[in-house]
């Protein structure tokens, strides 16, 4: 008996986590998916009626704004963070004695809560007393920078704060990548007299494809989940101009009492993450098993 137990022990230890993941991740996804096909309003109902919630979602102007914001914000956030992170990594890779301190400064925003980041940038970007007022006080009276309260521009303030928070992290990823490139190849290229920018663009960067992919996945994932930043910076406003799917879902679930809309918008978010992450995880796990 005890021998049997000893043999089964590893499985028994893993079992509670496995069951928990099955219920609280996959079971819950299933529940949300199910409810997204019903007429649930304030309370969940379980009789499936089809795609009615998705139909409502796609004709809702608010969802339209939220969903296109995801792509505007996501695209700019990812591209700018990657470019800035790469630039910083290359600058820092030039044998600098104070590298440790500089790296610490570039990366600290990643330790902050997005609520803190949002609060800080909300203060800096507020037109009345922030950046705009400061530059006006320097004598440039007509200077205007009121993106925070401009419905057409407010989403870009989310990009500004998001890039500030995440770009240092991308730098750390790229810096690790630059350091892992084989020294011998670079030395050989230098001996051949190949200019530095060519060494970077033709030898070093192409060998970092995996790191680019990782950075992209992490940033895309951060962008889709961005909720705290919008809440703290703009509260989704002005109006609903800076709504993202995450804030839309939250509003429907907890302020509007519209469970059907909350569930269907959550499933769309899930689908977007699925489309990005599954191919990545699949290739990662397969590469490891080979």
């Amino acid at each position, binding site marked *: 008996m005890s021998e049997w137990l000893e043999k089964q*022990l590893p499985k028994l230890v*893993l079992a509670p*986590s496995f069951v928990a*993941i099955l219920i*609280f*991740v996959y079971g*819950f996804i299933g529940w*949300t998916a199910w*409810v997204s096909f019903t007429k649930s309003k304030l309370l*969940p109902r379980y009789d499936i009626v089809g795609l009615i919630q998705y139909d409502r979602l796609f004709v809702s102007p608010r969802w339209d704004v939220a969903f296109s914001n995801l792509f505007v914000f996501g695209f700019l956030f990812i591209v700018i963070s990657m470019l800035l992170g790469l630039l*910083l990594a290359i*600058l820092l890779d*030039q*044998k*600098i004695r104070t590298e440790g301190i500089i790296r610490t*400064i570039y*990366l*600290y*925003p990643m*330790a*902050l*809560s*997005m*609520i*803190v*980041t949002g*609060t*800080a940038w*909300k*203060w800096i970007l507020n037109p009345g*007393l922030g950046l705009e007022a400061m530059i006006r006080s320097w004598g440039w009276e007509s200077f205007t920078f009121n993106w925070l309260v401009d419905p057409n521009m407010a989403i870009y303030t989310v990009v500004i704060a998001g890039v*500030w928070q995440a770009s240092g992290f991308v730098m*750390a*990823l790229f810096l*690790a990548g630059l350091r892992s490139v084989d*020294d011998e190849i*670079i030395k050989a290229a*230098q001996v051949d007299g190949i*200019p*530095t920018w060519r*060494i970077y663009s033709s030898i070093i960067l192409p060998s970092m494809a995996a790191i680019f992919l*990782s*950075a992209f*996945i992490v940033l895309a994932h951060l962008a889709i*989940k961005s*909720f705290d930043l919008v*809440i*703290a910076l703009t509260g989704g406003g002005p109006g609903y101009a800076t709504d993202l799917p*995450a804030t839309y*879902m*939250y509003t429907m679930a*907890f302020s509007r009492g519209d469970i059907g809309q*909350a*569930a269907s918008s*959550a499933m769309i*978010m*899930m689908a977007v*993450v699925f489309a990005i*992450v599954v191919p990545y*995880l699949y290739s990662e796990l397969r590469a490891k098993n080979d």
Partner: protein
Amino acid sequence: MTELNSKYVDSGYVQKLILRSLLFLLLGIFAVYYLMPLFVMITTSLKSLEEIRTGSLIDLPREVTFAAWKTAWSGACTGIQCEGLRPYFWNSVLLAVPAVIISTLIGALNGYVIAQWRFKGANLIFSLMLFGCFIPFQVVLLPMARVLGIINLAGSISGLVFVHVIYGIGFTTLFFRNYYVSVPVELVKAAKIDGANFFRIFISIFLPLSLPIIVVTVIWQFTQIWNDFLFGVSFSEAGTQPVTVALNNIVNSTTGVKEYNVDMAAAIIAALPTLFVYVVAGKYFIRGLTAGSVKG
């Protein structure tokens, strides 16, 4: 990597000097960019409201006052209550400490099993857990709210601990699994021949090896849980809210005059624990970040 600039620039000392100065100028500008918000937060928190209204964003305080800090800590209004951040700060401590300890312990055991006691299906379980790390949590909010109600944990700190443990297991398991997978399996075989059992091997062989990965996991989990807002705002009620939710309430509180200095002091207080961890253990913080994104 070797120093590219100096090798490439051999046409003279002056050119090298110019390039180096340019490099440091750029690095300096970016350092200012990253530090500016923190600087503005600190100086604003030390000014009086009068000075904020008349002065400019980046002015140093003419007269340093800690009044805003005192208000933020024990007097600012988060709604109808005006007790400052203090009670919510302790909520976050009460929430983060058990959640970090439990999820790290579970992750260590899971990682040990998956990496060293491979059985059929273990890899599938690992993949399922890994995917769980990536789901947008919006997809579990509604059913979790109901389940917490059913098991009588709705609106409580224990409920939040439970939620953070559940959704932390994926990452903690990943960290330990990747760490233990590099330990040769012969070690476990030899220990088994010597008569050591499952837990004995874990406690006397694996745990003593694990200090670095424990530090990485604890820091990762602590940062995630302390900084969480989504679970906090969804599953807490007045009185059990974590510090991030209280901070957001203070900033968006509509009663009375807008006290920017109090907002900034409150934001710094909410950020202090994770900033502190980052400053004293930055190396491990970065390792956690990169381990969380670059697997294997």
